């Protein structure tokens, strides 16, 4: 098959037998559930655009394994050009959905696992890379969406996995059998879990010998026996149950996260990609996080493009667009947004070939990218709220607008400039609310802070990669201090 259509993707999800709880109830049909469906639409867009010749250059790639045209989300980057195209694709999808389209985590996971399993096999004589390549072939052939599952619940952050009171706070091997392993534990914050065909589990921190049972990586079908999902709440999520299309802000698209619980899940050996090789867990975390920190230089920028556009329209609609401070705030928003993009492109352009042959981003620049992402979307959101005015949080509901009695009052008092209907103004303000405070703020704000690692994680990497000693030597030469 190689490239699924959007419809084939939706149908393939219907065949999954996922066990999902949402607001205390077992979900019978995830695909059509009004709270979940917008997130499915976002992933569906990754299939739809791949079929569109206008976007094929970014959305598709040529498989290095088969030479076939595949979705870029299933591709191992073969050049720095591929890395750049990845970021551009993510910006495009952010623009088209104004939400998290979820599929990047799996793409970043396969790229990290490829080089790490290769190096692991080379050093230890294991055979993980062959297993991984077989999985990748199938992923490309079936055009799977894969959940990249790294973050464990972690319990007491000051303790290592093996020292936790409850061993399940990190995913671990509870039994090794002739035919495979049995795992228990959970992965938290799983983006797009219910829209995925497969899960790729990886350890979440660098580990030591005592943690060997926790140094585990594997692939599993998303509906494997023993896996349970608990859907994450989002601010304003129940507006999607009201049936309207203004108050939700973004009716068609969204993102989601879920807690993924493994209760004695059996994984056959052919799907195991690390089992006890604790000395490689750090490299896997570092590379996955590096790729995902690059990703944000694309996706958040695309969502930022929509937010900036909405903010400019809010100013057009209330008549303030010509004010110099409003123009300046829009310029500042664009400057911040393009700075994020510049970081995403820079860490891609400075990428390099790994021993397995795929390309890795420049780690220092990717960490700088993500560190900026922990700040700039907040400032962009602040400026959007400034220009939007207080109405974005005090406005009556669309039901009031549509009410035959009071609709005229809403229409009259919330109109901005004469030429624009009040309804359009309400739609734009609700979109700004959605991205800055509503369901999409999960992706645009808090995920910008913590996704792919909290800010301190990037600072540690910047300290490690920043080449401080060389800078000292440079200063000594200029200042005339004799060198060692």
């Amino acid at each position, binding site marked *: 098959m190689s490239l699924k259509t959007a419809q084939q993707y939706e149908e393939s999800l219907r065949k999954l037998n996922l066990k999902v709880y949402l607001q205390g109830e077992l979900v019978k049909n995830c695909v059509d559930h009004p709270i979940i469906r917008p997130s499915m639409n976002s992933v569906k867009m990754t299939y739809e655009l791949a079929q569109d010749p206008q976007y094929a250059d970014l959305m598709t790639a040529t498989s290095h394994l088969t030479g076939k045209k595949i979705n870029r989300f299933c591709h191992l980057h073969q050049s720095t050009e591929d890395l750049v195209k990845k970021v551009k694709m993510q910006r495009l999808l952010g623009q088209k959905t104004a939400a998290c389209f979820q599929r990047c985590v799996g793409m970043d996971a396969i790229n990290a696992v490829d080089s790490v399993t290769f*190096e692991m096999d*080379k050093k230890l004589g294991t055979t993980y890379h062959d297993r991984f390549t077989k999985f990748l072939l199938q992923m490309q052939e079936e055009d799977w969406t894969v959940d990249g599952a790294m973050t464990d619940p972690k319990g007491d952050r000051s303790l290592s996995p093996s020292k936790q009171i409850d061993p399940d706070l990190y995913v671990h091997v509870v039994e090794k059998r002739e035919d495979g392993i049995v795992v228990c534990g959970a992965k938290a914050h799983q983006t797009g879990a219910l829209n995925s065909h497969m899960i790729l589990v990886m350890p979440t921190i660098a580990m030591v010998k005592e943690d060997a049972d926790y140094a585990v990586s594997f692939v599993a079908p998303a509906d494997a026996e023993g896996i349970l999902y608990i859907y994450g709440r989002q601010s304003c999520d129940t507006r999607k149950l009201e049936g309207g299309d203004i108050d939700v802000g973004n009716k068609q698209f969204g993102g989601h996260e879920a807690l993924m619980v493994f209760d004695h899940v059996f994984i056959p050996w052919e799907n195991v990609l690390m089992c006890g090789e604790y000395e490689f867990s750090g490299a896997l975390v570092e590379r996955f996080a590096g790729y995902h920190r690059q990703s944000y230089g694309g996706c958040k920028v695309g969502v930022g493009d929509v937010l900036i556009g909405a903010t400019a329209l809010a100013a057009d609609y209330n008549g303030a667009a010509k004010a110099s401070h409003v123009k300046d705030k829009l310029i500042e928003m664009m400057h911040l947004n393009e700075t994020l993009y510049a970081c995403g492109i820079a860490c891609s352009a*400075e990428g*390099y*070939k790994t021993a397995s042959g795929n390309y890795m981003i*420049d*780690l220092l620049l990717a960490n700088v990218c993500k560190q900026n992402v922990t700040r700039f979307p907040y400032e962009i959101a602040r400026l959007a709220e400034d220009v939007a005015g207080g109405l974005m949080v005090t406005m009556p509901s669309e039901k009031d607008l549509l009410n035959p009695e009071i609709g005229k009052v809403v229409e009259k008092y919330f109109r901005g400039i004469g030429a624009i209907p009040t309804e359009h103004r309400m739609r734009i303000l609700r979109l700004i609310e959605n991205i800055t405070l509503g369901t999409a703020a999960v992706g645009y704000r808090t995920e910008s802070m913590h996704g792919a690692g909290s800010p301190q994680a990037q600072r540690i990497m910047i300290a490690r990669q920043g*080449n401080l000693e*060389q800078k000292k030597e440079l200063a000594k030469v200029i200042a005339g201090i004799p060198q060692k």
Partner: protein
Amino acid sequence: MENRRISIVFCGGCNPRIDRGNVALQIQAILVARGYQIGYNSLDGDFVIYMSGCTVNCALKYNLNNQPSVVVAATSVDAVAIDEGELVSEIVMKVRDYFE
């Protein structure tokens, strides 16, 4: 012996993680003592050492005709990370493996 000409090709050196010049001098000392000739920044040797200061690996951009080579990018040799202290011996070993 006349075929043992080594070219060391440097990257531009904007933000190096290793002291490329020093590494090159150490390699030169060892290899010259074994009868090799060393040249810099040309591709006319029989074997090329691409010497980049960081993982971006700019020196490799000069690799146009796929000559026998070893690729050094920061502390990796042929894409495998090694300890900085072993860099010189690892590179010399790659050269000797090819010729000797």
